[in-house]
């Protein structure tokens, strides 16, 4: 079932399937690891709910809801976040 990254609950993990943003924004997000196939865990929310902090590639990166809702993925069973195998 496809899910927006912004709809992930705390602790949930998704594998990114589509970054529905213009090319330049996609390139920027890609540098931080947000790209097809990447495993992203929703690890925290800012106190006011926005932005949302995601764990991927061993880093913690915050995105605004307006950006995260454009990234679609498939929910997966949460694996340990240190697992880097594809």
């Amino acid at each position, binding site marked *: 079932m496809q899910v927006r990254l912004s709809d992930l609950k705390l602790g949930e993990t998704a594998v990114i399937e589509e970054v529905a943003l*213009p090319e330049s924004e996609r390139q920027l997000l890609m540098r*931080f690891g947000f790209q097809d196939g990447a495993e992203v865990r929703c690890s925290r929310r800012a106190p006011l709910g926005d*932005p949302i902090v995601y764990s991927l590639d061993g*880093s913690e990166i915050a*995105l*605004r809801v307006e*950006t995260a809702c454009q990234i679609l993925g498939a929910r997966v069973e949460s694996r340990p976040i240190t697992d*880097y195998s594809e």
Partner: protein
Amino acid sequence: MNQLLQTMADSTSQSQQQVRTVALIGPPNSGKTTLFNRLTKLRQKVGNYPGITVEQHTGVMALSGREITIIDLPGVYSLNPHSEDERVAVSVLNGSMDGVPRPEAILLVLDATNLTRHLTLAAPVIALGLPTLALLNMGDLLAGRGGSIDTVKLAGELGVPVAIVSATEGTGLDAVGRFLQQANEPVQMTLPVVQDVRECRRWAAHIARESAYRAPLPPAWTRRIDDVFLHKVWGPLVFVIVVGAVFQTVFGLGQPLSNALQNLLAEMGQKVAPFIANDFLRSLLLDGIWKGVSSVLVFLPQILVLFLFIGLLEDSGYLARAALIADRTMHSVGLNGKAFIPLLSAYACAVPAIMASRTIENKRDRLATILIAPFMTCSARLPIYTLLIAAFIPERPVVGVLLGTRALAMLLLYVLGFAAAIGTAKVLKSSVLKSTSAPFVLELPEYRWPTLRSIGLRLTDRGSVFLQQAGTVILCISLFVWGLTNLPLHQGQPPELEKSVVARLGHFIEPVIRPLGFNWKIGVGLLTSVVAREVMVGTLGTLYGRDPETRSMSLQAALQHDLTFSGAMALLVFFAFAMQCTSTLAVVRRETNSWKWPVIQFIYMTGIAFLGAFLVNHALSALN
């Protein structure tokens, strides 16, 4: 494995050129700057790349009698010329940047704890074909948190030598020296199409896997600290306390320090005065040059205090959390969370605030922050606010003993400045500085102890940049205004203020400021306060002190005698909006690297001030 691996011992291309210039490149947060400072031992120069707002650091490294120039490039994730930083990096590496020597070798700095991601940059850098050494920085953290990497395999995969280093600990750096002694071109390897970020990442993941990279465990204590600092309730509370402490210290410590320094400098001038016989020369030296120098120096305490805090916040990792907490609110006015600290600091003084805006990576957001910061009610506005409020607003309780009319007036002036800043931000962000193509992406680094060394470096860096580059402009303008107030010479003596060029200018602009309810004396005050707002009070003191009609009165009484109520209120509003601060203009020029923005800012703010004062004067006159 703390040694340089010469993977190409058998390489045929033993082009043993003497390396004279080497470029340091790496993603943001890879510890590049710390490494740069280590290698150059602080023998560095800070400048701007010609025509661009990206700062240029070059330093010199001594290597067995030779001097090697190290160019510190801006932190980049790729070499696709998307951002200004990347364009700079590409043109420096190609040797097409004016005034920057073409590098003959590259030190590629990658964070060993984030290697999979950071390796993405390795492909385009190695593809340049220059002798390259890959430095896996933060090697101590990698090992300490249970990560590992096979550097021999990695060197084999990359085709360039690899060394594990720790810039903070200073370990493994001898590899750099050995590399520079004998720099070899990279071995031909199959590299991905370097323009394709996706391809590069896939390649990076492959390389990381092949070289048995095991990422370190995420630091558990960072997450435990964040459980508190980003907690729904405790997070904002800690935020308010930290922010309050910063504001209180900049205001409560920086300001008195600045005042004390100002008094000290003035006293020193007084001490020297009797030894200069010639009146004109004394005036030139003391009122012109020395006052100019003082007006530059008085900013130093505030700049240093603010940057001490910013250094602590940024190096410890809290600044990113503060930005995260503030972002929701800042977003509603079209700015991002990183603008919060600079804007708050602007309540003390816009000069250090504008310098602090460089923590905002998004260029447009940074420019918007720079442009609105001077609207915040800085401490230099307080003397004229206090004077006019005391003279024209009778003290009456508004909310019992809690709030009187005078405090309310002061509060309204703060709100006015804030509203102007927010309004301007909204206008800017929805028009010329609209930034749709750069989403807000904020990396939360792990918490680290700030080091004395890095904080000290930051302070000397900011301090010297301000003194050298903004200081000279401030000094020149101070001297210019001194010239206007001390010319024309009358029998070799400077004229009385009323007969000086500036007074003539005051009379000249009187028709323009008359609709605001100001007379020529206020006009002269406004002209001299272009140097700094607080100068206004001194100028008015001199003018009213010379006028026989007001000579015996206090400045307050003199103003009451000379100004209408509506004129006085208009003057307050004028001060709330107007850009009367040479130092701010000089810093804006320095930070944007052009006169375009300070000029636009000056015209815009003065225009708003004029309009606001005009409306207030006429509205209040009509009411009476």
